[in-house]
């Protein structure tokens, strides 16, 4: 009988075994190579899986089949896609800035892969446990904007430049709510280390884990975080930088063949990484929600949560129409930013409403929950009403498309 702990740590044990059997001077190198290779292979495989998953899911939502020609139910579609993108001609516009045009997709993919270094995908399964892990994630992630600019500018095409400008404006605007919505978690955990944040949420009391999403500020913060994450990764309904119907494909319009595939890969990897961060901050990382489910290996929890969030992204993409640029900016600065600040305030209140203030645990806990929820809910309703005022909702008139 294999114990649950052994299954949980099977990959860690395997790595340690391989490192143990290499010559001593190479051990550090081998250890690093194994970690990096695992991250690249696993998340690239997840990317391949997600492309099918997304196209099938979108097809289902839009009442069509989706890919169904390659292999059973079209599951080998990613292999066909890979062969296609590898054999396609790599077209570079004559007017393009060749060096920057070449470097942009590489920088983008490289930077996105760097963010995975601090992500805890399981118990003892973090490549680098940085003391400032969350800060590292945002600092490295900020460099993607530059890669997007490089792609848009070097293509020498007005649509790609427009797409890059849109992308940068959007990413800078939504980076602020993204970072601010993770501030309450850092405040409550008292650490910036991702491993530390997960370990605090993995504690259980009364069979229930201390996930941040179970608290009012955590729930509101998680929703705000995921909205900002959707915008940050340029996913629908925030896919204005691509905007097929207006600016064709945005900043990667002049890319073809494998470079285009790299952009595609980077976009999905960004989505996984930011979902992974959301899981780490709010959904307890690799921990189980209830203590009786603790026997399921930690990495299954992490990837299960990741796939659930990915399904959420696909669902939103299949449901919500694209925003307009002014709506996007107004939403970021007039709604997201104040709401994140209110959530930070609520988290502070939660911290100081201890048992001594609100009374003993069962009833006191409920009172604390309700008070903190009210602190978020009341400003939310006021803010939403205030933003709605003066706007008449009437039947839409199509002037040019009759």
């Amino acid at each position, binding site marked *: 009988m294999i114990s649950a702990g052994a299954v949980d740590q099977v990959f860690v044990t395997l790595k340690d075994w391989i490192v143990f059997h290499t010559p001593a001077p190479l051990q550090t190198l081998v250890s690093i190579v194994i970690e990096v290779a695992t991250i690249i292979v696993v998340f690239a495989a997840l990317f391949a899986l997600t492309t099918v998953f997304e196209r099938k899911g979108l097809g289902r939502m839009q009442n069509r089949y989706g890919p169904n020609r390659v292999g059973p139910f079209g599951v080998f579609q990613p292999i066909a896609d890979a062969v296609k993108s590898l054999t396609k001609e790599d077209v570079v516009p004559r007017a393009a800035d060749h060096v920057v045009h070449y470097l942009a997709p590489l920088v983008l993919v490289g930077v996105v892969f760097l963010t995975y270094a601090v992500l805890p995908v399981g118990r003892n399964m973090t490549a680098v446990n940085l003391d400032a892990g969350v800060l590292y994630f945002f600092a490295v992630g900020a460099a993607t904007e530059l890669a997007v600019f490089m792609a848009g500018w070097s293509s020498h095409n007005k649509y790609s430049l427009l797409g890059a*400008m849109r992308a940068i404006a959007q990413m800078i605007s939504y980076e602020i709510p993204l970072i601010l919505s993770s501030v309450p978690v850092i405040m409550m955990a008292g650490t910036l280390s991702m491993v530390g944040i997960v370990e605090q949420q993995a504690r259980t009391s009364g069979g229930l884990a201390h996930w941040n999403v179970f608290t009012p500020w955590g729930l509101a913060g998680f929703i705000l975080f995921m909205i900002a994450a959707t915008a940050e990764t340029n996913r629908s309904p925030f896919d204005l930088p691509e905007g097929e119907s207006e600016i064709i494909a945005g900043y990667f319009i002049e890319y073809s063949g494998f470079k285009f595939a790299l952009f595609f890969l980077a976009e999905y990897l960004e989505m996984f990484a930011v979902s992974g961060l959301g899981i780490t901050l709010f959904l307890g990382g690799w921990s189980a929600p209830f203590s009786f489910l603790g026997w399921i290996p930690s990495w299954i929890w992490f990837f299960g949560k990741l796939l659930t969030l990915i399904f959420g992204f696909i669902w939103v993409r299949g449901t919500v129409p694209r925003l307009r640029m002014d709506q996007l900016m107004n939403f970021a600065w007039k709604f997201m930013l104040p709401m994140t600040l209110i959530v930070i305030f609520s988290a502070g209140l939660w911290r100081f409403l201890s048992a001594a203030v609100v009374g003993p645990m069962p009833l006191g806990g409920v009172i604390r929950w309700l008070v903190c929820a009210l602190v978020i809910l009341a400003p939310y309703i006021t803010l939403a009403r205030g933003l709605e005022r003066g706007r008449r909702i009437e039947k839409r008139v199509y002037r040019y498309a009759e």
Partner: protein
Amino acid sequence: MGMTFSFLILAIMTLAGGVAAMTMRRLVHCALALVVSFAGLAALYLNLGAEFAGLAQLLVYVGAIAILIVFAILLTRGGEGEPEGSFSPSPAGIAGAVAALAVFAVLTWAVETSSVARAGAAVAAPQTTMREIGFALMQRYVLPLEVIALMLTAALIGAVILALREKRNEPADGTAQKQGLRA
């Protein structure tokens, strides 16, 4: 020593980025070379174990300042037809070289006469964690922090006011409107 080898690579990267930023023809290329220099500097901080300083450098300079520079270039020149960069000795060039030398001299003097340099390698590098930096910022240095925050907010509001279109007495034709904006 492993430290010196990584230091060498990063130093070359930083310096090469800086030199390229000064000598390249197209302004956007210069900005991108400057980013390489910024990133090299951040990596140097990380190499020295100054995690917070390195990551903050990355977040602020590569994530924000570089984008600001790039936007400024695109909005003012359109990224096209830059003048040819030349190194012919001009009064401005000589003044720039003198200023750079003076800054370098002052920095060298400051580093050489600092207490750390005099003590030599005997002083162990101070180990600071994020937690200690947080406590320092929120307790001992909370007043300077708040003053800086207030100043930055004021600057932000000032920038928005400068950029706001004047609504009150908007002139009819375009030229007058431009003058109104400039005033």
